[in-house]
């Protein structure tokens, strides 16, 4: 079971959740944040921290947002645009900083869709 960041984060990227995460498992793309599922300890601290209620536990994810479950995973398991290797599990977001790229799903959203 994992926590997932869904579309309300896109073009918001408030980052309150990043500060709250005790294991630094929330990574920053260009237009959205992504939770590394293998690093997440499932504590749920990020959920109330998000001002736009973009974070869900997998079990609570509405059907309309279910595609973000795989999309969060894809951010780490598939090579991102401009990269030849997937990120996998870097072991902490701070050390690699803002990545500046998104998954195809997030990149496909019109600008400011959720703001």
């Amino acid at each position, binding site marked *: *079971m994992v926590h997932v960041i869904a579309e309300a984060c896109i073009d918001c990227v408030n980052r309150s959740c990043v500060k*709250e995460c*005790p*294991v630094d498992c929330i990574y920053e793309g260009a237009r959205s944040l992504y939770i590394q599922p293998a690093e997440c*300890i*499932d*504590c*749920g*601290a990020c*959920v*109330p*921290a998000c001002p736009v209620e973009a974070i869900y*536990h997998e*079990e*609570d994810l509405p059907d309309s947002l279910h595609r973000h479950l795989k999309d969060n995973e894809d951010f780490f398991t598939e090579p991102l645009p401009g990269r030849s290797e997937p990120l996998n599990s870097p072991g902490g977001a701070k050390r690699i900083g803002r990545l500046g790229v998104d998954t195809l799903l997030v990149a496909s959203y019109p600008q400011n869709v959720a703001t």
Partner: protein
Amino acid sequence: MAMRDTADDHKAHSPIEAEVDATFAEWMGDSSVYWNAERNAWIVTGYAETATILEDASTFWRDIPLREGSPEFWGRHLLILEGRDHRRLHTLHMQLTGEAFAENIRQRARDICRSVISPLVKQGRAELVVDYADTVIFLIGCDFVGYGLDAAAMEKLLVQMQIRAKWKEALHAGDGIPLVSKTAQDGQVALKTMASILLPIIRERREHPRDDLISALWRKGPGVFPDWNENDVLSTCWSSLDNETKPLLRGLLYTLCRDQELQAKLRREPSLVTGFVEEGLRFLTPFRTMRRVVKKDVELGGQSMRAGDSIYVITPLANRDEERWQCPHAFDAERKQESTHFAFGFGQGYCVGRYVGRVEAAEAVRAILAETSAFGLDPDGERPRWHGEMYHSVSPVHAILQP
């Protein structure tokens, strides 16, 4: 694991180091996971294994729901829930009492602490556990929860809370105690007495909400459980009045009584108090035996655990991992915490009061430093003693307070 560092490992030993280490010596084993026949349970002392247990809630979860008397004691409380119900209530707690909330109560907490310590300083002597540590945590909790009680009702409530606390310790230690035991019977009477004082306030706040936790729980609770009711509000608020900040604060005050050099330093540099509290959490780890039950067969630390096995996670030992902290057996108020300590647990059970607890402890320490020029153990007072299996702390702490 070495019991302590050599004398050369750090510059100045705190006077409390050896005596605190001695309080968990009984839990040390040959490996980081071992079977204890006397306890009929696995003992876990390693950092990595502790992290695994606290993170993997589907394999390891609290045994509290299984204990006789738990439902009567806790009601529909976070500590006896699991799975989705637990997660949703946990999220509600964090929404209502997270970091912003804790900062909002800081000034009130400071004022309450100073109002309690000031007359004690005028007396010149106090027993800091009952007169100060336990009292201020209770009063701050009553304040932010919204229990606006007069002094007489507050006093009555505090006495009943102490009776409840004895049941709480016995309920969670060892194999627990039966409901028919005197401690549990007394505790149930205390719960009824407290409910008779608090439920009318909770009912009134449903009709006339204010800016307090009770009102927020009425507003948000039905989003977690559609049948949310007054007993849920009551249960949810218990931990605001009686929690592990009490044993933490007892230990911090005792440490300052024993370590005059550190006390003087914190007076000169109050900004160090935050770090002092954090090191107190790591070093004292007042919530020191976290109990878990194995939910499915698993290998951990080279041992084969079976579903149904009991586990004692000894958090102060996990918090002394030599690969995680330099000189882990040293109490260093200026230590940069290199790793996450487990004083507040971790994973799905990560303590929802961790922000409030830190603020309460820091403000209580700042208040006593501000109201005194010095304080130390009263040589004529009863000797302090460390005790408690789940909540571990020191008492009594008779002190002389110099204005």
